[in-house]
């Protein structure tokens, strides 16, 4: 590879790359993100290569392993260009048909298309699928356009032009001004304005400064940072280099969690390629600006994503938050000014520079600009990564993009912000998504986790579930977090087991207040969110558990019982055969009865009892009716009598 020594040479190379590729030549792009690889994309890619060779099409068709477009649940995802035909859940067996039909005959393979579950309509193009159609994919759309391991592909979509612009046409102050004007706020947690953070570092007197990428992504279920870093690593490097230039830093680190091996591979390849082209390292593009980047693999504890813990870990010590009242953009890594931003925050930077702050601020609400990627999971039809403009309502995300709640169930709440976010109830579904809006509702943006819950979810159990996650992730250094979470979890566990006491809810609130006010880092300060938000919006559920020993969602095992309604049981014996605990008494023409002493509450009987009988009930908060006497159990079939 040749070193590029000026913006002109960069443009020349870009034109060369573009002229080499023929836009009308078919290109099969297969998602090679971690999600699709796990569902077999590797085999699909191999099958495409083999089939193309077998059919003698090697020079007529390109293949590409791309980044994740977000619809991993329907992966492996294959898109055929130039028509942009989108095939889902592709298996190696489908490959010969795709080649002979779609590539040779230009015919669509119907059975691999997206089918709308409500209308039954098929969507040929990615952009016709409602999941994608209602998004605003400023960042993630590039993922499926480029080979995540090719710098030339990134250059072909205009890559590194923002860096060239910054280095040759803008002063550091102008870059700062543009980012400040864009009102870009941190995508990794608190939503702190990036421009202000950068400015603080730039103005700090200490000459050596650092820029860091936070790719720890410890929220279970969230993977937007992985998708960006894996799929489009150069965009992160470009953003980071621009940030370094703006604050006067020459050294950067990318802190990636160990569980993301593919992201580490791809970003290391990207760094090497950028260095070879002279887009990283000494005298970038001949500008005289030097900047190097190293990748650091983190040990994967959730708390290591917290800024001071991350820096302590980078320094080679145990990743524990440290107490301090000076911001790390002034005193950070090795005591020097350090700008730490989230992956997605950095990814926005090249776009803001290229398209301008005014372009960026057209999306969003007054105080939250641009787009945000959410990881939509839970009781929802379409799960995956969704990029939406700030200000979109939760309702639109859940119903227009997510396709609503499956199985005809009712929506109950959506939990946003990761394990220490809060639950938002149905009455707030029209809330506009933004940093301050979510915080006001008792939740937070966090890194963008979004878990949808339906009517079968017990909100007390939800609070217990998240605290149970956090208790293992707290570093244990400070009392209000370590001991506070311990006690809150104990109380919540007791409540879900029917051992709640009068005064428990108030004690929980008191513990929560102390954790918020007195914890050392944001983990402890935000840990009570799931608890407080569920108490705020679902206090009646807590009270039902404590006072009536009743779980309104019929979910807490210790508070429910299964019961067969003798007037509905048709003695079909299905449940009897399926019960793993042998807890059902019955027989031919005998009304079935559950032995409560033996029942393990596995729920099998309610699932298998034919819907037209619907004889099995879950009950809570009331005594189980006494079993009908043995001699009254003979079934009298009314229909047959007549």
């Amino acid at each position, binding site marked *: 590879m040749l070193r590029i020594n000026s913006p002109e040479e960069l443009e020349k190379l870009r034109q060369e790359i573009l002229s080499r590729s023929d836009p009308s030549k078919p290109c099969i792009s297969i998602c090679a993100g971690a999600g699709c690889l796990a569902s077999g994309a590797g085999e699909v890619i191999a099958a495409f290569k083999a089939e193309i060779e077998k059919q003698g099409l090697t020079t007529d068709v390109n293949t590409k392993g791309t980044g994740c477009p977000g619809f991993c649940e329907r992966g492996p995802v294959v898109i055929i260009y130039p028509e942009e035909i989108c095939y889902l859940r592709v298996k190696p067996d489908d490959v010969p048909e795709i080649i002979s039909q779609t590539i040779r005959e230009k015919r669509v393979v119907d059975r691999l298309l997206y089918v709308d579950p409500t209308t039954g309509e098929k969507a040929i193009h990615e952009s016709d699928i409602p999941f994608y159609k209602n998004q605003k994919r400023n960042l993630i759309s590039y993922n499926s356009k480029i080979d995540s391991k090719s710098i030339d592909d990134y250059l072909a979509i205009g890559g590194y032009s923002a860096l060239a612009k910054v280095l040759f046409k803008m002063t550091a102050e102008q870059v700062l001004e543009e980012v400040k004007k864009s009102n870009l706020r941190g995508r990794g947690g608190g939503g702190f304005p990036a421009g202000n953070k950068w400015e603080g570092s730039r103005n700090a007197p200490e000459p050596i400064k650092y820029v860091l990428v936070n790719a720890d992504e410890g929220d279970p279920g969230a993977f937007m940072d992985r998708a960006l870093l894996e799929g489009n690593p150069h965009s992160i490097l470009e953003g980071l280099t621009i940030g370094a230039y703006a604050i006067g830093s020459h050294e950067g680190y990318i802190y990636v969690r160990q569980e993301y091996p593919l992201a580490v591979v791809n970003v290391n390849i990207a760094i090497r390629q950028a260095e070879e082209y002279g887009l990283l390292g000494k005298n970038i593009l001949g500008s005289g600006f030097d900047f190097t980047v190293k990748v650091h693999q983190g040990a994967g*504890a959730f*708390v290591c994503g917290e800024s001071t813990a991350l820096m302590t870990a980078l320094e080679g010590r145990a990743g524990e938050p*440290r*107490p*301090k*009242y000076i911001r790390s953009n002034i005193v950070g890594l090795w005591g020097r000014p350090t700008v730490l931003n989230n992956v997605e925050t950095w990814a926005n930077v090249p776009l803001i520079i290229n398209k301008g702050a005014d372009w960026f601020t057209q999306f969003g609400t007054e105080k939250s600009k641009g787009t945000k990627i959410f990881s939509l999971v839970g009781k929802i039809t379409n799960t995956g990564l969704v990029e939406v403009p700030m200000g979109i309502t939760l309702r639109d995300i859940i119903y227009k993009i997510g396709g609503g709640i499956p199985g005809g169930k009712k929506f109950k709440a959506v939990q946003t912000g990761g394990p220490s976010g809060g639950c938002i109830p149905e009455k707030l579904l029209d809330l506009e998504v933004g940093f301050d809006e979510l915080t006001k509702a008792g939740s937070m943006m966090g890194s963008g986790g979004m878990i949808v819950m339906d009517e079968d979810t017990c909100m007390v159990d939800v609070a217990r579930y998240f605290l149970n996650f956090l*208790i*293992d*992730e*707290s*570093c*244990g*250094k*400070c*009392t*209000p977090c*370590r*001991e*506070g*979470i*311990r*006690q809150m979890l*104990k109380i919540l566990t007791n409540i879900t087991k029917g051992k709640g006491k009068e005064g428990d809810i108030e004690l929980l609130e*008191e*513990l929560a207040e*102390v954790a918020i*006010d*007195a*914890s*050392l880092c944001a983990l402890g300060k935000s840990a009570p969110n799931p608890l407080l938000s569920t108490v705020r919006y679902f206090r009646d559920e807590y009270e039902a558990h404590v006072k009536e020993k009743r779980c309104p969602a019929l979910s807490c095992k210790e508070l429910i019982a299964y019961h067969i309604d003798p007037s509905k049981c048709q003695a079909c014996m299905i449940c009897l055969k399926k019960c793993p605990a042998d807890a059902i008494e019955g027989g031919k023409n005998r009304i079935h009865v559950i032995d409560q002493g033996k029942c393990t509450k596995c729920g099998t009987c309610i699932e298998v009892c034919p819907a037209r009988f619907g004889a099995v009930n879950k009950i809570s908060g009331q005594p189980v009716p006494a079993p009908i006497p043995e001699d009254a159990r003979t079934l009298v079939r009314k229909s047959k009598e007549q």
Partner: protein
Amino acid sequence: MSEIILQIDGKEVKAKEGMTVLEAAQSAGISIPTLCHHEKLEPYGGCRLCIVEVEVRGWTQLVVSCVYLAAKNLIVRTRSEKVDRIRKMILELLLAHAPDAFELQDLAKEYGADKDRFEKESSFCIHCGLCVRYCAEVKKKNAVGFVDRGTRKEISFIPGIASKECWNCKECFPLCPTEALQAAFVLTKALISSPPSSELVSVGIGKD
């Protein structure tokens, strides 16, 4: 070093630059309760008992005084309804571990903390980190350390080092506000009577 004047509990207090609020208060004879603080050690900010209210540009904030630096014109309140409420809860949480620790009992009296508010926990340790930090920072031996995190976090002697260093030192012992260190040491000693190993052996310090 230049002098700063700040206000603590309505009193004008002189402090040197770089002093923490706790040090400034102590120099003026104002006492703030602490559990994890030690003059010879780096500020740790773990127990959170030394929390106070400070007023910066009209904003009231809760900060731990053993870390927060004294600053010109800073207004500090070492007691308030909120501060007392937090200290009471912290003490109650810690008393679940070490109900018999004298230091905690005295403080419990002052703040009206109920030592039986929470069920007793199996470990005495209150995680002040004094033993661990003293050995690391002052003795530079690292013979005792923390293992694991969250509620599973416990102190642990490293037998290989402890067998060489601790016998003649034991300087950390009087620092421990509870019986945890002593208990852990007894257990370690029992362990080391078998051939010493340099491996990290986690030592339970439970009551049973």
